[in-house]
């Protein structure tokens, strides 16, 4: 038997080759599984959050018909268009009316499980349309957290039984809660909303953008186009590179020690939060801006200089417009990072309980990620779903921003 297939291909060689190919396949498989693991974790995370979060956009509500003709409440468009309209209704006994009808229709136990502030919802409806005071209207009022837990199959047996009875009668159901996107923080998970935190985030991001973008772009222009090669420039470059890698919590300490020392009355104001995040975002913008400016070919500069433009004109008329898409992409990515940042804002006190959306840059506010953190600390079971719902809102915003960055990159970025 001829053991040689070819001059070098001995049997041992064949066996070795087989082994080597097997190792090759194993290696490739290991690489593929590493990637699949990451993707699987990502999908698992997103799916868990979505499943939990869908519940957060709903809440248990009870149907209560209120016959206002019996209630003896008075008021018309002119009296109820004033500022204290809700207080007027309260003084006339609206809370008691709501409670009465709730107990009438849901039984003593059921009526007691209506949310404490349900009457405010009714009051808001009346203020919107006083003519319903002459009618019988069916309202969908939030149930108490205990009953909501009962409906979800948790909590005490008593509540479970009550929830089962009421939902069999069609008086208790889980409804889509669009108010979640309009309300602010509250102590009752049935009453919370995300709008307060979202508005706080927007105000904070506005301050961050307003400070970090111009400073970042100007610093990038200076370092890339004008800076002389000397020790000072090296110091600037080193400090920007280091700032980009400093843990975010250190910026929180800086904000606490410097900004709150300068403005002691502005604890948890979007202005301070925005300034702290701006210091964190600025290095990101500088680094991506420098890369975008570097990508503009020198021939453009030479051409402009050759026809007599001054160095400042070269940069502001030619280089900057061409580099802008790249700079904007980097800015959006930096802003997305700032939007998801929690730790520095905890340091400067943006963790207060804020039950009304902030009015301006100096009023107390909280932001989306901090709101998520605060809700995740709550013991009440109802907050778990609300937290996931808030995470979904945050992730949607981040995806929109990243999508915009990718679009800008593909649409406007030139390959020279």
């Amino acid at each position, binding site marked *: 038997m001829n053991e040689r297939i070819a001059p070098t291909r001995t049997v041992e060689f064949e066996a070795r080759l087989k082994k080597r*190919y097997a190792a090759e396949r194993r290696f490739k498989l290991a690489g593929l599984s590493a990637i699949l693991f990451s993707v699987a974790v990502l999908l698992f995370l997103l799916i868990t959050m979505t499943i939990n979060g869908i519940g957060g956009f709903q809440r248990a509500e009870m149907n209560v018909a209120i016959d206002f003709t019996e209630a003896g409440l008075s008021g018309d468009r002119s009296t109820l268009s004033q500022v204290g309209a809700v207080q007027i209704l309260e003084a006339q006994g609206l809370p008691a009316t709501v409670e009465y009808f709730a107990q009438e229709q849901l039984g003593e136990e059921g009526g007691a499980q209506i949310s404490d502030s349900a009457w405010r919802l009714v009051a808001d409806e009346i203020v919107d349309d006083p003519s319903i005071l002459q009618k019988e209207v069916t309202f969908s009022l939030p149930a108490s957290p205990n009953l909501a837990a009962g409906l979800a199959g948790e909590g005490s047996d008593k509540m479970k039984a009550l929830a089962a009875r009421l939902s069999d009668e069609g008086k208790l159901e889980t409804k889509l809660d669009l108010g979640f996107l309009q309300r602010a923080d509250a102590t009752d998970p049935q009453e919370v909303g995300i709008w307060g935190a979202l508005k706080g985030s927007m105000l904070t991001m506005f301050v961050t953008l307003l400070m970090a973008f111009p400073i970042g772009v100007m610093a990038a222009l200076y370092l890339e186009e004008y800076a002389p090669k000397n020790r000072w420039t090296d110091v600037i470059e080193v400090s920007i590179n280091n700032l980009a890698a400093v*843990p975010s919590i250190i910026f929180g300490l*800086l904000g606490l020690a410097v900004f709150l020392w300068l403005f002691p009355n502005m604890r948890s104001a979007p202005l301070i939060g925005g300034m702290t995040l701006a210091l964190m975002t600025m290095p990101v913008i500088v680094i991506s801006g420098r890369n975008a400016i570097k990508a503009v070919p020198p021939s453009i500069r030479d051409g402009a200089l050759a026809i007599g433009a001054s160095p400042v004109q070269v940069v502001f008329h030619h280089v900057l417009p061409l580099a802008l898409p790249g700079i904007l992409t980097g800015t959006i990515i930096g802003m997305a990072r700032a939007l998801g940042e929690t730790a520095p804002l905890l340091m400067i006190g943006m963790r207060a309980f804020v039950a009304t959306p902030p009015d301006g840059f100096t009023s107390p506010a909280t932001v989306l990620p901090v709101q998520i953190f605060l809700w995740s600390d709550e013991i009440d079971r109802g907050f*778990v779903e609300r937290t996931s719902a808030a995470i979904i809102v945050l992730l949607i915003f981040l995806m929109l921003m990243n999508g915009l960055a990718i679009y800008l990159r593909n649409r406007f970025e030139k390959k020279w």
Partner: protein
Amino acid sequence: MSPVILLVLALGLGLAGWLAARARAWGFKREAVNGRIAALPTYHAWYVALWIVIPVMMFIALWSVISPQLVSQAVLASPAAAELPAFGFQRDSIMSEARAVASGSTRSVFNEQAAALVEPYRAAISQYNIIGALSTLVIAFLTGVWAFLRVKPDFTARTRVERAVMMILLLASLVAILTTLGIVVSLVFETVRFFGMVSPMDFLFGTQWGPDPMSNPNNPDGSRYGAIPLFWGTIFIGAIIAMIVAIPLGLMSAIYLTQYADPRLRAWIKPALEILAGVPTVVYGYFAALTVAPAIRDWALAIGISNASSESALAAGLVMGVMIIPFVSSMADDSIAAVPQAMRDGSLAMGATKSETIRRVLVPAALPGIVAGVMLAVSRAIGETMIVVMAAGAAANLTANPLEAMTTVTFQIVAMLTGEGSFDHPATLAAFALGFVLFMVTLGLNFIALRVVKRFREAYE
């Protein structure tokens, strides 16, 4: 009047100056013999506008800091303030309440004494508002007129505007240095105060951590400020558990993506990794606390470990590792791509398989870059806050058991500074000392890593 309104006023005045100066320069240009003046009219316009806006901005910045103090001094000088408590917290709260009412941000007063102060406050605020607005106008007018009168046919406005632009650009790049200085100075300042109360030896080498924010601040118990358990927790979670997850997975992902993957697959996987990197840390923290930590506890109970806690170093470390994967992957990607093509070709030409080329040639050649990337990843992991705050626990355990709760430097910074402790207490100041250690360590890691990367790039270029 708020600084925002003053700012709008400044910009409006600047615009007025801009228009006026441009009109004047156009006038000169029309009269000029050859229709040319020393600079385009727009540059004259910018010259005047800058001379108005920059001084006014400086004034507003100064004013917004000093005017609240002037207002409260005026109020304290008023007769209604004579009955205030002399010092301390109560006085501050009455003052701030009266200020809130006077500026219209709240409607009713809670404290009787505050009610008496509302009127003086209102008077002082309106008085200083008028002074502020008038000063703005005067400054804008003086500097504007001075600049406006300098607009002449032979005035070289462009070079002056460009010099100002260069100055502004330079100042913008100095913000980075200022920020670094601000961090260093504020951390060092508070750390020195802390070491005035607790000896550095106790802090750096003590093994018991348990500051009591309610204890007597003048006589702190140094033995309760030993930070070794925190350092160990930080290293164990961030540099050991997280890296055991992130290094192999990140490295293999990078190798597969750059060496094996179909371009179409790569087009899908790369954005997925970017999403993984872009998920906020608070979401990872929630994921770790809600899903991973209970799963690990159940698993530990199932294999017979009875005292498994619901907060564990393992849960935090695993999730942190997953968070770091994209970072390690992109660093490894860069350094493998920097290896010259000739080395790979040479290895393949010798008959090595692809995986042999990668393991024996590419990875060793890229090793300095990969090591630097891992150092950057470690510096990122030890500075990570939210995951450990939400999943790792508060107990300062000095143990190597990953199933136990463990605390980190970042966790303690958050815990110390979000409590009710006063700013003069060593427990609060300890947070700054911890922050200083964290800052120095991450700075050192980054510095070494960047040097390695630089030298490594130069070696192949």
